[in-house]
């Protein structure tokens, strides 16, 4: 009964509201709303673009100032390179983020290898420097952190690591010697984005692994594999730096054989 009464009610109301000008008014209202909203959105969008451009230009200018003060003595005032330092045209923001973000740049002294050391700049300063260098010529960008989130194929990462990276960085990722005083650093404890940037940019004597050689997903798999290695406990106990047979052999020759010699001397010594 109640249902019936409401339906009749509604019908009555609908019929009562209908007016000859209703559809015209509706169309007008629709047009005004759409037009107004469009105008509103476009104006904010342009304002935002203009705003980001200004912010970006400020960042680049700030980066230029930092660059002139800290980097230009070796890399030149337009990052064109000098006898002391390479040209930075085209190295991209990723190279700056890696080199400065790991403390390798600015170098303490010219030498065969720029070492990792305490970072000299704040994150904002590094971002500004990266923006300035990226503004000179197109180059690889700082990877998006979302690349390292979610499921990764550890088996694929492991295989690619062993084929492409392990010969220099050691199968356990603990680094190794190169020629004439250079070395491949340990990859343990290195930030995911820095590992990625190193593959993309080929810092110092490391070769470049571009996206056609190792796709961004492949690189993320390699990073995930390294993080897995870093976090998984060593089943065998103390890893002794995972440097391989040389360090392990040295340990057992000194301490193992040392203990054997000591015990032998004690057994053969006469009791007093």
């Amino acid at each position: 009964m109640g249902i019936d009464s409401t339906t009749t009610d509604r019908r009555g109301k609908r019929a009562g509201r209908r007016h000859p000008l209703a559809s015209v008014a509706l169309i007008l209202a629709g047009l005004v709303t759409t037009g107004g909203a469009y105008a509103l959105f476009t104006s904010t969008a342009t304002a935002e673009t203009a705003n980001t451009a200004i912010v970006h230009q400020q960042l680049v200018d700030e980066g230029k100032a930092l660059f002139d003060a800290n980097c230009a003595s070796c890399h030149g005032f337009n990052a064109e390179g000098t006898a002391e330092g390479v040209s930075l045209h085209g190295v991209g923001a990723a190279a700056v983020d890696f080199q400065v973000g790991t403390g390798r740049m600015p170098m303490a002294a010219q030498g065969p290898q720029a070492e990792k050391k305490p970072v000299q700049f704040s994150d904002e300063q590094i971002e500004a420097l990266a923006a300035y260098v990226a503004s000179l010529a197109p180059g690889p960008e700082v990877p998006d952190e979302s690349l390292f989130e979610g499921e990764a194929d550890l088996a694929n990462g492991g295989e690619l690591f062993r084929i492409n990276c392990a010969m220099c960085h050691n199968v356990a990722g603990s680094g190794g010697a190169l020629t004439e005083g250079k070395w491949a650093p340990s990859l343990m404890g290195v930030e995911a984005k820095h590992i990625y940037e190193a593959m993309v940019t080929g810092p110092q004597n490391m070769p470049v692994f571009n996206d056609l050689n190792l796709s961004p997903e492949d690189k993320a798999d390699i990073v995930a594999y390294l993080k897995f290695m870093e976090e998984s406990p060593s089943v065998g106990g103390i890893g002794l730096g995972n440097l391989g047979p040389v360090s392990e052999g040295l340990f057992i020759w000194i301490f193992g054989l040392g203990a054997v010699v000591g015990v032998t001397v004690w057994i053969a010594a006469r009791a007093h």
Partner: protein
Amino acid sequence: MAKQDNGESSAAAGSAVENHGAVSVSSGTAVVASDAFTNPGLPPHEPRVTDLDPAKERRASRTVGMLFILSIIGSIFAIVAYIVFPIVPGDMLSVRLNTLFLGLGITLALIPLGIGAIYWAKNLMSSHEHVEMRHATRGTEETRAAAARIFTLGNEESGFTRRKLIRNSLIGALAVFPLPAIVMFRDLAPAKDPVALFKQTMWDKGTRLALDPSGAPIKASDVTIGSVFHVIPEGLEEADHPLDEKAKAAVLLMRLDPSALNEADDRKGWSYDGIVAYSKICTHVGCPVALYEQHTHHLLCPCHQSEFDVANHCEVIFGPAKRPLPQLPIAVDAEGYLVAQSDFHEPVGPSFWERSA
């Protein structure tokens, strides 16, 4: 006449022997030097503190007892540890803890046992030095005669020397028995001539260079300056023995600034716009050479530190390798993919006996 000659010569020889004999003592006798060491004998016996002081003796015996009790504790600890730290399937850390504590327990059980035994022997057991002479190894005449009798009796009863057919066929059977093994050993050598296999690889005219491990072909434009690609021949997975083929055909592909390459006139056509391909197998003992430095253009072999200069046709600049790495001549096909112009022009990897140079 002959007899006379003989007689004369023998007489001469006899006199020479006589002369020689008269000169010195027989050459078979060792020279006895007058200043030889005399056997100093045993040093004088010195009593230990445990022999002289009963208090110290009691302390030493307590020490040994404590070490043995420690060993008991270690054994019990090992059992407890094995139960307290079980191996949980899938949890690698549990393996480590289980092994660590079980090992510590067993160490604690065995080391004090050994130390206690040695301490006991050194400090409490008799310390008097004495000499034990070796006894003769030769048996008595009776034992020897008895052994000989057993052999004779055995021969009589079995008829080993009498029944010639049995003896000879037994010797024959034992002699023939190892022959199947010798025939099988022959087949341990490669069935095919290995020299021919050493001299050629899977690379051939038009074989595309593919990425290891995916096997995707590589375009020349993919290889940017400073890049290094680990390369296998396309179709490697379909080969009869992919790993054998890979061991010979593995290649390292690098792109240098073309101005950095110093190419010989006869090899100018082997590279493509600064892209060069070299065998990854070291010419020293065959390790994979892949430690590439993009600015110095050095390739380092991790096994014995041989260094190759990629800018100069991979000539050896350091280390034990004697020959440069063989270069794979490459070109680009109609679709832009990198292909081999031919196989390597020389055998890859370390030297072998039949290698001409």
